[in-house]
């Protein structure tokens, strides 16, 4: 097992030798307190380096810690031990707001359940990340352009409840890419979609990722989908393998 881990670290190190990694983690560990006051180990000694523009898939069985790892890499949660660097900045010393500020305009998310705001139109949902960044200009035009890229410019004034699941995920993609993020985290992006729609979304996702040279970190159950990424990590019992 140790040999395997060492080989992953070595592999990541080789890939990122030309430029500094966009995501770097070392000795990452996460444990949670249970109701019986015992500690449950979720992740143990995770070491990763992910380069700019790289696409990475993380797979694993339910409860293997995939989502927890994604949250830690994105700075949504803090590790029990170890270090994560996102866009060259160590996350541990940062407080919640500083971590949020690091993500602002540079990190995008795509969720399994889309998580569009049901009181906002498709266009308003896409405008949201730009509105959070006070330096953003021409917000409306950029959001419309993003909707056009996902083929939904004609449905810009529709509320999420008026859109199909596939359309909602397209809006979510537009929202994730509108600020041209350096990193995109995707959590089971096709989990709530039928096969054909899922395929369409994934094709679109990779197209946009390549076009923007965005680093993609995707959590999925789908091995065939994982194989389309440049790197595929498997999580087993909180430990990572390739």
């Amino acid at each position: 097992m140790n040999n395997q881990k060492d080989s992953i670290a070595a592999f990541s190190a080789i890939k990122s030798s030309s430029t500094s990694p966009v995501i770097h983690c070392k000795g990452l560990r996460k444990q949670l307190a249970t109701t019986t006051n015992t500690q449950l180990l979720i992740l143990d000694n995770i070491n990763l380096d992910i380069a700019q523009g790289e696409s990475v898939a993380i797979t694993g069985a339910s409860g293997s810690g995939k989502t927890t790892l994604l949250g830690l890499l994105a700075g949504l949660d803090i590790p029990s031990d170890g270090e994560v660097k996102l866009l060259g900045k160590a996350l541990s010393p940062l407080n919640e707001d500083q971590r949020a500020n690091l993500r602002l305009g540079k990190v995008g998310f795509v969720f399994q359940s889309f998580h569009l705001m049901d009181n906002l139109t498709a266009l308003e949902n896409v405008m949201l990340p730009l509105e959070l960044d006070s330096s953003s200009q021409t917000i409306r035009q950029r959001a419309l352009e993003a909707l056009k890229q996902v083929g939904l410019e004609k449905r810009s004034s529709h509320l999420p409840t008026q859109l199909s699941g596939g359309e909602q995920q397209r809006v979510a993609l537009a929202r994730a890419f509108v600020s041209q993020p350096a990193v995109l985290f995707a959590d089971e992006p096709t989990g709530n979609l039928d096969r054909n729609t899922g395929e369409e979304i994934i094709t679109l996702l990779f197209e946009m990722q390549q076009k923007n040279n965005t680093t993609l970190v995707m959590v999925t159950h789908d091995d065939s989908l994982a194989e389309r990424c440049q790197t595929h990590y498997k999580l087993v019992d909180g430990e990572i393998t390739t």
Partner: protein
Amino acid sequence: MKKLFSDWQRFWRLAEMRLLLLALLVAVVAVTSVGFFTDRADRAMSQQATTMLGGDMVLVSTRPINPEFIAEAEKRGLRSAETISFPSMVSALDSSDKFQLAQIKAVSLNYPLHGTIEVSETATSAVSNASLINLQNNEVLAESRLFIALDASAGKPVQLGKMQVRLARFIRKMPDQSTSAFQLAPKLILPMKMLKQTGLLTPASRASFSQLFAGGAGEIKDFRAWLKPQLKKTESIRTLDDGLPTVQQALQRGQRFLKMASLLAVILAGAGIALSSYSLTQHETPAVAVLKTMGASRRQILNRYLSQLFISATIAGIVGSALGYFIQFFLAQYLQSFVGQNLPSASLWPVFTGLLTAWLMVLGFSAPHLLRLINTAPIHILQGQNKQANTSKLFSAFALSLAVLLLMWLQTQDLKLSITLLIGVLFAIVIFWGAALLMLTLIRKIGERFRLPKANHRMALMVVVFGIGLFSLLLLTTLRGDLINRWQASLPSDAPNHFLINIQPDEVAPLQRLLAKEAIETPLYPMVLGRLVKINDKTVSEEDYDNQRAKRLLIREFNMSANASMPLGNKVIVGEWFAVDASNGLSVEEGIAETLHLKMGDSITFDIAGEQITQKIISLRSVKWDSMRPNFFVMMAPKAFDDQPKTYITSIHISDAKKSVLPAIIKQFPSVTDIDITAIMTLVRDLINKAAFAVQAIFLFTLVAGVVVLFAALQSQKALRRKEIAILKSLGASRAYLRRSLLLEFAIIGGLAGFLASILALVAGNIAAYLLFDLNPEMNLSLILTGTLLGALLVSIAGYLNVRGLLSVLPVSLFR
């Protein structure tokens, strides 16, 4: 700013936000409609106050003013004027036989010292200032009501006591012309020099003597300081600083009550806001988590929600104030007989109060909920959890209590009253809550086989909030109509409907003969005024008693009588009634004996017209006060008043067939005053009706607030209900079945709220009936039926409207 409003438009699409705004709007409309009305009434009062007294200071007495006081005032360079007021009948001299009780005000020629008497030729023609000096020998001034009652026009002669006078002008405005609601008789002003000729003022007359003084502020202050220690119990000083006359105090109390009633709507609306905010927090938790993944800071989240709350409160404050302004017009129109015809325009203060109310409500009821959002952990969005962050319950409770306290203070400006109201509301909530839970459990047990909905706290909450709204409305409905009807119905059909007072001793025999001719038999009671000065030879004053009623009894003069037979409706409880020829002893009403701690055998001294008379208590009586007959706290032995100056009083029943007897009495005995109880009853009924209706109108806001809370409660469980409906549909439940179940649930909630509200209204109404009118409890089943049906209907409609969209939810939504 543009961004703020475009964000607000986005939030407006959320049902929770719309409900929050609606609840705010209800609260602001309730507060401002009452606020604008009371503000206008207050301004009217302040305007009146400057000319109300007619001078800088008034000395009022039930006896003629001591001439030494007047001389001293003149010595100090003060101007003074004199008035004497008393009620008397005025009758037309034509064949119409019309007559009317009037409040006669005899005034010296320099009256008033401040302000003017405004008069006109007709009730509506141009107004000019009256000069009493210019009045002809037999000319008097009168309010238009007297002209109308006597079917008279300006210049018409009428009979006033022994004198014929001409109603020269219509009084349009005059000092001390307090609001008309409690002023039973129209005013008639006559110059003091004419008073003697009318022969109306006798030593036993019940008149009010006033001396008005005017001068520099310093002189008035010094004179007052000199005068005050010398005053007797029957004399008092009135200045603008000494408070307002009774009518205006009553008006102020009424205004305070209206404000309290509106406060109930505010508190219920607050519950609606809290529930809407809870739902909003639930709804927005994932949204906030998503925003945080995008990089939103805690400050941005806080600004986003607080700014929306602030905008909503401001919009509700402005729109609600505008609505409140229009509503108060109707209120002022309806209550114009209370507050006068021409109210000044309102200030902007109620708008500020409305805005402050809205801001306080969002800060106290909503902000603590929404503050949770800033602590939402973004990781939860990945974990598929909709877990709300915790905030300190202590902080929420503190914010809520502070907001409620400030809202109450804002409305009542009386901390004690606010706390009493809060305790009352809490008590009602506890009673409703307990009863609702009990009844819901009972219904569940009884109706298990009918698949009735399971009782839970949220259902109980809906019963409580809606029930309180209904309760206040039903109680007012009961008090407004039912009680007065029952009181009137409890009186026998031949109960006296006229009081004859001010009958002079030499008029007793001829009056009795006249009444006997019309087959009207009634005892005439002699009446003297006396003030209690000693008990068992020990001088007493109001300082000797803590009880407010006892204090009042020691300040005022008693109406005392003496008679051989006991008045009807009286019953001796302890001791024995007087012998026919007795000249010693007292019979005291049991209530007053208890208040003043009097007992059998006590020696009591009264000051009657300057002479002290001491007698022992030989009996205690119970008195039926609402018998419509003359009743007295203290009665003396039959011969006790033989040497005292006195007038007589009686009550008679005049049927429609015998109506002609009254003009005959007034013509033959001009000093006799007839008080028409039927007219007073009609007036009292009208006043109670109007006052209760006004309060009821305010309580309507409470009901609307109840409906908003109901919607908010339904909204907060909508997600759960959607899931339930989807599951039931997937199991094969039809739309019709689901519709039936929902309607049944709402009907149970509404019916129960209505049932409990009507039961409580009935209990409270009967307690009021017993305490106020001495009526026996009555079970008004129609009220319970009406309340239950009304509640079931309202909640079913409101509930169904809220959830009907869910009936079309597809079972497939469960898989998303």
